[in-house]
């Protein structure tokens, strides 16, 4: 890299990770706290480095040249009389540069401290073949007496033979109605409503059954010519009378 006979110049461009890295290295060369570095000196050093590289016709990456141009601007702004209208001020730019260098430096040092720690698998080792701890899970089954009894009740209800009980219902059969109507008919001279043929005091489903059976009995007796049926209009009262 270096020209023959010039052993003082050491430029190893591959060693730097960008312009900020180079600036940090130069700043650390000032051997003061980064908060106290001279930005102007730093700019001078950077520009000198870039100029040397150019003289050696080293190919610098574009970002080094961009940084050089920016630093050259910063330098002139810092040296020239201050223009209060200018924003951001050159002092602000210089301060921001310094803050960036501090942050990069902090992380570089933190990284170095981190990798210098006793590292597992490199500096310290765990037991390579531990017997291992085993947890044997055992189920402790829970059930309550209520659950047990209720379960049995459930099975019983589900599997008990189903018995169908047919309730005895109070009805008047057709035969009964025919007997009744034909007997009562003899005692009636005038037209009588069908309801008057029902048993006295009949109510509820029995009355309905008696009414229906008596109606069918009346139809049957009319068919036999033993009685006559009269009704003035639909749903009007139904009258029965023995045939003349």
């Amino acid at each position: 890299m270096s020209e023959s006979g010039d052993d003082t110049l050491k430029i190893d461009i591959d060693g730097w990770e960008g312009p900020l890295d180079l600036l940090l290295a130069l700043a650390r060369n000032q051997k003061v706290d980064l908060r106290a570095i001279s930005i102007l000196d730093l700019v001078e050093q950077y520009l000198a480095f870039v100029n040397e590289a150019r003289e050696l016709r080293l190919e610098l990456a574009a970002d080094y040249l961009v940084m050089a141009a920016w630093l050259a601007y910063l330098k002139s702004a810092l040296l020239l009389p201050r223009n209060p209208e200018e924003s951001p001020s050159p002092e602000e730019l210089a301060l921001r540069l310094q803050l960036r260098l501090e942050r990069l430096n902090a992380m570089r040092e933190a990284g170095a401290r981190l990798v210098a720690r006793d590292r597992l698998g490199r500096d310290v080792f765990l037991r390579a073949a531990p017997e291992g701890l085993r947890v044997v899970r055992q189920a402790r089954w829970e059930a309550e007496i209520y659950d047990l009894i209720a379960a049995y009740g459930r099975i019983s209800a589900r599997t008990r033979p189903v018995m169908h009980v047919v309730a005895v219902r109070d009805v008047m059969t057709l035969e009964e109605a025919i007997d009744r109507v034909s007997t009562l008919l003899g005692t009636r001279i005038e037209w009588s409503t069908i309801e008057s043929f029902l048993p006295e005091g009949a109510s509820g489903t029995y009355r309905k059954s008696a009414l229906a059976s008596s109606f069918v009995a009346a139809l049957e007796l009319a068919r036999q010519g033993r009685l006559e049926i009269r009704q003035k209009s639909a749903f009007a009262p139904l009258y029965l009378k023995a045939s003349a």
Partner: protein
Amino acid sequence: MTEPGDLADDLGRAVEAVLFASEHPLSIDEIKGHVGQDADVRGALAALEALYAGRGIELARRGDRWHFQTAADLAHLLRRDREESRKLSRAGIETLAIIAYHEPVTRAEIEAIRGVQISKGTIDVLMEAGWVRPAGRREVPGRPLTYATTPGFLSHFGLASRRDLPGIDDLKAAGLLDPVDLAFETMESETVTEDE
């Protein structure tokens, strides 16, 4: 009694660390490969063996190889039983109820009563819980195994004996029969009557 200080020499520490970090028991030659060919590894092993004697960790020799192992009498500590409480499934509780009310009872009888097949695991769970035991074979074709409840069953459910299990009439009186089933039964009988 060996003072730990005796072993605080570099070789003892080195052999200790090498054996600890090794995946396999190591021969003296292999240890030398780590700590140096001229080291008195045999002497260091003897010192370590004495130092660890009676401790929770022991230096053990397997043939011509050495390794650390946990003391054999502490093996029970390395296995830890953890109880987890689990609720019986519906199939489990029904099967248990049938066994309790009908014991001794065969699997086929349980299935006939439940109206569904029971899986192998169901009875296993009840046996694991300590509530059910095999109770001999029934002397019928196929000699099926019967099941009955255990004293553990009685004590878990707070029963003095099986006679303390409420009868089916008690269940009905207590309203423990499934109301849905009962309601369905009632409706069904009405429908049948009306059809006639």
